[in-house]
């Protein structure tokens, strides 16, 4: 059954005549399928765990749930799960703010001044293909294994999308908008204030969005650098103590947080760019 047939023939509006049609209607419903999918996934996972397909390193879903509950209530290395999450989030937020404060102005300058762009872009292109994780060793060498090197690594990861999107946002403004504002009597300063900034804003905002999720992705890598708290610490501890349930519950919390972040940012975007058409 294809999507287009579902939309055009509208099986939901017609009353099913017999049991067969009723069943087809149920199985065409996306939400029913979602539920089936999740149930099957959990069943498959549980079966694999019970049959020990991956050795003793795949816990049952129930064990993961119990581990989550346990970490929420009983502290691990002196801190509960929420506190660990908070430490990771704090690092992400600090590095994210610094990355935006550095990246957006650089991107804007690159967009505004062809000279600055010609000077800066080769250096940027040189550093861009190096993944933030590759900086871990240098960061440790320079800043030790303290908080600074973690923040540094996250900044490296988060600053790139800010620069790229701010630069492209300025560069890709519809030139006819400039014609328009000049015909309306705008001077050079007004061109920047009334056209360049608002026109580039959605792209810049999108860059900040990507930057935030990049920061959240990178914090784990940063916390591999000997952290005493945070989500990365939980995962490393799970690895050192051979507790896969701890690792998986860490991953669950990380995924949930990433999901929550993107939800918040999407709502924020609707609020700050109400003119942006909703693209499916």
């Amino acid at each position, binding site marked *: 059954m294809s999507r287009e047939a579902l939309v055009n023939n509208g099986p939901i509006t017609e009353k099913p005549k017999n049991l067969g049609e009723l069943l087809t209607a149920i199985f065409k419903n996306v939400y029913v399928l979602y539920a089936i999918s999740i149930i099957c996934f959990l069943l498959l996972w549980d079966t694999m765990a019970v049959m020990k397909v991956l050795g003793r390193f795949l816990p049952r879903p129930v064990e993961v749930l119990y581990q989550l509950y346990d970490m929420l209530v009983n502290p691990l290395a002196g801190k509960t799960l929420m506190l660990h999450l908070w430490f990771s989030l704090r690092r992400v937020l600090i590095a994210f703010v610094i990355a935006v404060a550095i990246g957006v102005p650089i991107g804007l300058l690159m967009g505004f001044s062809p000279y600055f762009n010609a000077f800066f872009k080769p250096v940027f292109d040189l550093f861009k293909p190096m993944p933030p994780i590759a900086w871990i060793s240098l960061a440790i060498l320079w800043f030790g294994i303290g908080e600074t090197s973690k923040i540094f690594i996250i900044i490296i990861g988060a600053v790139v999308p800010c620069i790229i999107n701010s630069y492209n946002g300025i560069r890709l403004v*519809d030139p*006819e*908008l400039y*014609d*328009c*504002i*000049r*015909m*309306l*009597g*705008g*001077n050079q300063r*007004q061109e920047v204030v*009334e*056209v360049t900034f*608002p*026109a580039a*804003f959605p792209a810049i905002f999108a860059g900040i969005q990507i930057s935030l999720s990049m920061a959240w992705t990178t914090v784990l890598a940063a916390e591999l650098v000997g952290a005493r708290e945070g989500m990365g610490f939980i995962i490393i501890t799970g690895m050192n103590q051979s507790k896969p349930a701890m690792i998986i519950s860490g991953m669950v919390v990380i995924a949930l947080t990433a999901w929550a972040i993107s939800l918040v940012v999407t709502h924020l975007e609707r609020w700050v*760019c*109400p*003119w942006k*058409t909703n693209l499916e």
Partner: protein
Amino acid sequence: MEDKSGVKKPKIECVNISKFFGEGQEKIHVLDTIDLAVKENEFIVVLGPGQSGKSTLLKIIAGLYKPSTGKAYLDGKELTHPGPDRGIVFQRYTLFPWKTVMGNVEMGPKLRGVPRKERRGLASRYIDLVGLKGFEKAYPHQLSGGMKQRVGIARAYVNNPKVMLLDEPFGQLDAQTRYFMEEETVRIWETEKRTVIFVTNNIEEAVYLGDRIAVLEGKMPGKLKKIYDVNLPRPRDYTDPAFLELRHTITEETELTL
């Protein structure tokens, strides 16, 4: 504007305008020695097929392009830069997507530093004139093509320009809306008389709207072929025999197949 001899000077005058784009091998000759004079409060239509350089001519008058040779004048003063004494309406509407209808229309006065209350009143008047009352708070992406172009017209009018420049403004509209917008254009122009230069590739539209029609030759570079006077009473009727005859004449004489 009358000088001492009592002869009316043209409002807009193009003298010997040519335009080239590019350099060397890729040099393209777009306009060839155009001479054109437009009287005050006259509605002149520049008619030509695609690639005839008609939009380029309009943008030279707007001051957005510099002519390669020749000069364009407004009230005897040479036009070198864009400015609010000419209002422009673009084919692609080119509204500010982050501004509401009100925000778009009040942009001109805002740039001049007119206080908020005053410019709101001014903008409201023109939003009313183009028939968009009640849509002040809508964003461009919520409007239909015809409504977007109404905003474009109001935005140009609100600056009280001496000349209105319209660059194929209804080229992206469907036929029905197009007829309606042509009627509206005449109504607005009759309420607020201005010198209008209207660029189009549609003969019917040209005959319906223009006091005079300046026809540009089809192939590059664009040359002024002939100027027709349209002595038909307004409001005009698309099916009037005199209307159809003029339309036929222009079609025959200019080999425009539109």
